[in-house]
């Protein structure tokens, strides 16, 4: 699992993920992801279009980061998940606790940016 961090207009952190968000993948990026997503306390959008697989450890990483941002008054939005990844996220009810939208534009709209 690899990640790329950029800053979008409106002071939003964008993290693009590529690869498997399984236990080894989540472990590989855990600290960097959490720091990038949460530390600054800015809204963050997570590009899942390059994610080929997701399991519970990956989902936990997303939940913990979303919770960390919420405590700082900011929001985490997921976007672009491939069909099977989207389905797993929905089965885990992740769509009930954080926004999961189709693309980057929708993610920014969701943040009001």
């Amino acid at each position: 699992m690899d990640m790329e961090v950029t800053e979008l207009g409106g002071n939003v952190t964008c993290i693009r993920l590529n690869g498997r968000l399984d236990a080894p993948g989540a472990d590989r990026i855990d600290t960097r992801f959490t720091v990038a997503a949460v530390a600054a306390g800015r809204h963050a959008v997570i590009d899942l279009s390059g994610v080929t697989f997701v399991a519970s450890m990956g989902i936990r990483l997303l939940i913990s980061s979303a919770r960390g941002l919420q405590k700082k008054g900011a929001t985490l939005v997921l976007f672009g998940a491939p069909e099977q990844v989207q389905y797993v996220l929905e089965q885990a009810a992740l769509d009930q606790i954080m926004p999961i939208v189709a693309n980057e534009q929708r993610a920014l709209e969701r943040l009001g940016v």
Partner: protein
Amino acid sequence: MVEAASGSAGASRLQLRLASDCEALEPTRQAVLHFLAPHALNPRTIFNVELVLEETLSNQIKYAFSGAAGRSIELTVQVDADRVAMRFEDDGVAFDPLRARAPVLPSSIDEAVPGGLGLMLVRKFAQSVDYERRDGRNCLTIAVARA
């Protein structure tokens, strides 16, 4: 780390013995994928098999042996006309996942709890889950329907 007891690409059954160690997850996954490749399974089936494999083995590695080193897990993968069956065996602490309480799905970020997600995903993506404790061994059989 991972030993093949039997089964090659094209055979209907694969048997592996893997160390109860997180480092064994990826080689095991690769061995199973190599075994499944000639069966031309639907990508959705492969995805579901990988999910069950990841969640079940992760839990076994974490909890079956209470951190003791040098223990192993036996995995058998069987491909049938309508399903892929996986059998996970270990001689660790007795644990029947069918008795574990299913987590309540959260409706807010504050309600999201870390435990139970892996088992819940296995139940949702498997066609069947069967457990028995026999001769001091946990024997868990999980079938994934072929899409």
